């Protein structure tokens, strides 16, 4: 009896640590085994979750404002001199610009790499600002160049209004010069928590003269949508560039300048990284094409971190010229090909109401609002977000969501199903003790995700919170997290880089672009004796590509045929084939076929990876 009580005491202490996400040294299998046979401890676990919820929903304290009292109590004397005898400005420069001066970042025109501490601070500041944004309005003037020889410059005016977390309005007016055959590409997208409606733009081909036709249907609507369902694009990154600036890789500081009478902090990223920002002002893709290596200069208000202006400049190099020829655009290297700038200032405001009108095409999301259930066992840790909406989908999945400002979290509980092969291949398997989680970075089409599989159900966590917080949230859930198997059974098996290196049958790349890390290694069975080894690499927070960088190797001594005109690229002593359309560099070396797919169609990166394999 005494021994049983000690075991229960130990398990209950572990359960207490587990709901805090402190799972690193816990033996989950032993805990689960004990819970399976001890009703008292199962009841205790339930009480822990209820207590946690009760502490979170406790009565709010009325916090006194003590700032004036504290400042009045400081020793007199004003500012103390800086040790070297110099003073720095405190008026007119916001905190971010001040720290940029202190850290010695480059000024405009300089090309020094970003100071990592300053870049990290900007990323942190943008993340932190997300919770304090409740409403936003702004008008952008957009100038686009070289869309068509007949219309080398187009102009748009975009009005954005947002009321966090899900009310928004994006209206784009086309104020381009009139040209025969051109139909102005204007649209209006409005969304609320439960429905959205869009008037769609005309469809235009940039021929000479342009060939346009009205879109059909001309308007769409969706009712009964789930919270944060992704079917209506919320232009979050034009309000705060949360995904564009989700990590410091590919981020260079430009310094500060004055824009429209406001101090602004500048950063430079590749267009691939800035895809969420551009997509937020161009959700229907009416702008001209850009190359992923084109550079984007983004200027931010250092107090609010709202974008004030961004510019896209054509990258340089023969690869971009080759792409431009195939895309039908004529850009000069370094030319500014898109500019979007706030006009008239940024303010607080809510999207205007408009009487509902029937759309040409309507769909229903089938979501049923049900509210939060006090008995529900959700994640114990939700990063201090507040309960937002909860309900059920048409397929019976339970959805609960949390938000604070622009930051949000969605938890979907569904019946246990095998993991889809695509999800299996794109997921990074994280192991914490005996628990398994499956992580996927955010892309243009979907948010950051973590899947956790239990015995009878599975949870999907989706959020725009950073990876570390999302993983911690998932770890605080009551679902254990078993190892997932793909729907195709044994045809795809997960392995590890260490195991592959020990076996010595495949090559492991010695170089990856900045910000990329291994997200999984797989063995894919093929017909006959042919099996392939697939290595995947992703960026941690946001990846412009769904697949990331994919390196496939198999025993094969010829390249597969292609219908594309081959572009031959020497890689060391090997001749490789470059496919511009697929972004794939392929070659055979010593009887092993190697394919390197890079999402940004960056031949230089693919070549560097290939050299690291030879």
């Amino acid at each position, binding site marked *: 009896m005494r021994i049983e009580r000690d075991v229960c005491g130990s398990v*209950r*202490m572990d359960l*207490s*640590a587990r709901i*805090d*996400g*402190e799972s690193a040294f816990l033996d989950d299998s032993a805990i689960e085994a004990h819970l399976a046979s001890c009703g008292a401890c199962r009841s*205790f676990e339930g*009480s*822990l979750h*209820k*207590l*946690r*919820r*009760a*502490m*979170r*929903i*406790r*009565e*709010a*304290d009325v*916090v*006194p*404002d*003590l*700032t004036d*009292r*504290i*400042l009045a*109590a*400081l*020793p007199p004397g*004003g*500012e*103390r*001199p*800086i*040790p070297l005898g110099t003073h*720095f400005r*405190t*008026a007119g420069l916001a*905190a*971010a610009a*001040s*720290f*940029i001066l*202190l*850290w010695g970042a480059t000024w405009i025109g300089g090309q020094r790499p970003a100071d990592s*501490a300053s870049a990290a*601070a900007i990323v*942190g*500041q943008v993340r*932190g600002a997300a919770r304090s944004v409740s409403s936003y309005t702004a008008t952008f003037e957009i100038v686009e160049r070289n869309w068509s020889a007949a219309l080398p410059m187009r102009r748009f005016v975009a009005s954005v209004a947002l009321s966090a977390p899900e009310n928004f309005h994006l209206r784009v007016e086309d104020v381009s010069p009139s040209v025969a055959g051109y139909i102005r590409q204007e649209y209006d997208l409005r969304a609320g928590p439960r429905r959205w409606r869009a008037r769609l733009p005309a469809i235009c081909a940039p021929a000479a003269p342009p060939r346009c036709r009205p879109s059909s249907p001309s308007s769409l609507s969706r009712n009964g949508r789930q919270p944060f369902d992704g079917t209506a694009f919320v232009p979050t990154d034009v309000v705060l560039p949360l995904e564009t600036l989700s990590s410091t890789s590919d981020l260079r500081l430009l310094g500060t300048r004055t824009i429209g009478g406001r101090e602004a902090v500048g950063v430079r990223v590749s267009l691939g990284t800035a895809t969420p920002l551009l997509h937020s002002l161009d959700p229907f893709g009416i702008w001209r094409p850009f190359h992923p290596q084109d550079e984007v200069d983004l200027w931010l208000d250092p107090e609010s971190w709202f974008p004030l202006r961004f510019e896209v400049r054509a990258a340089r190099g023969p690869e971009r010229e080759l792409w431009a020829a195939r895309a039908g655009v004529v850009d000069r290297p370094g030319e500014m090909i898109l500019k979007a700038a706030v006009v008239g200032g940024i303010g607080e405001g809510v999207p205007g109401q408009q009487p509902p009108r029937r759309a040409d095409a309507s769909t229903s999301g089938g979501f049923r609002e049900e509210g939060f259930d*006090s008995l529900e066992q959700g994640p114990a*840790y939700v*990063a*201090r977000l507040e309960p937002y909406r909860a309900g059920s989908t048409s397929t019976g999945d339970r959805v609960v969501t949390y938000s604070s400002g622009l930051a949000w979290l969605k938890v979907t509980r569904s019946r246990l199903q095998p993991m889809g092969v695509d999800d299996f291949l794109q997921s990074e398997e994280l192991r914490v003790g005996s628990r398994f989680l499956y992580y996927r970075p955010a892309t243009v089409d979907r948010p950051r995700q973590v899947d956790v599989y239990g015995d009878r159900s599975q949870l999907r966590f989706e959020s725009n919170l950073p990876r570390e917080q999302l993983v911690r949230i998932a770890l605080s859930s009551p679902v254990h997290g078993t190892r997932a198997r793909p729907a195709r059974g044994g045809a795809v098996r997960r392995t590890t880089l260490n195991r592959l290196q020990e076996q010595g049958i495949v090559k492991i790349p010695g170089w990856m672009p900045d910000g990329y890390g291994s997200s999984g290694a797989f063995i894919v069975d093929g017909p006959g004796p042919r099996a392939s080894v697939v290595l995947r690499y992703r960026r941690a927070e946001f990846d412009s590509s769904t697949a990331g960088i994919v390196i496939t190797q198999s025993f094969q001594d010829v390249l597969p045929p292609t219908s594309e005109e081959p572009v031959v690229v020497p890689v060391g002593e090997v001749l490789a084939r470059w496919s511009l359309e697929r972004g794939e560099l392929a070659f055979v070396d010593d009887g092993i076929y190697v394919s390197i797919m890079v999402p940004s169609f960056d031949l230089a990166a693919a070549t560097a990876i290939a050299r690291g394999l030879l």
Partner: protein
Amino acid sequence: MREPDPGEIDAAARGDRGAFERLVRRYQPEVWRLALHIVRDGRLAEDVAQEAFLRVYRFLPRFKGDSTFSTWLYSITRNCAIDVLKRSGRQAEIVDRLRNRPGPSAIDPGVRMDIKEAIWELTLELREPLVLIDMFEMTYGEVARILGVPVGTVKSRVFRARNRLIDALGSEPREVQGED
């Protein structure tokens, strides 16, 4: 608690009153809340918050970043709270609490309590880590650093605190309606 950017701290350390004021405005509510849960008196919590920020102002040039700013700030707040309690004449009560001897307002297991009351009835030794974990969402490592104890001790105290609260509140902790 969001960490301030290094430039803000540096500016405040160099005597920039504007930067220090921004730190105060941002963190004062959290400092007051933490103080309130330690001293259990709103007026005393105000004294603690003022004292804590005065110490921050005085010692900020010595802050080397070997912990997060919030960990450093919470440590100072805690120390100030203990000092204020002592100055207010509650030393005996502190000793009793730290030695796990229940005071006059012991938890009556027969009475269902408001959760805030139940938290405040915990000894300081159990209340501090619980508040830092559950209300300030710190990690065990951060709390261990603030309290100057091993991580295992934090784990044990949080568990004991929750155990007591579950017993005190009965099987169904009564939830106070929060703000929307």
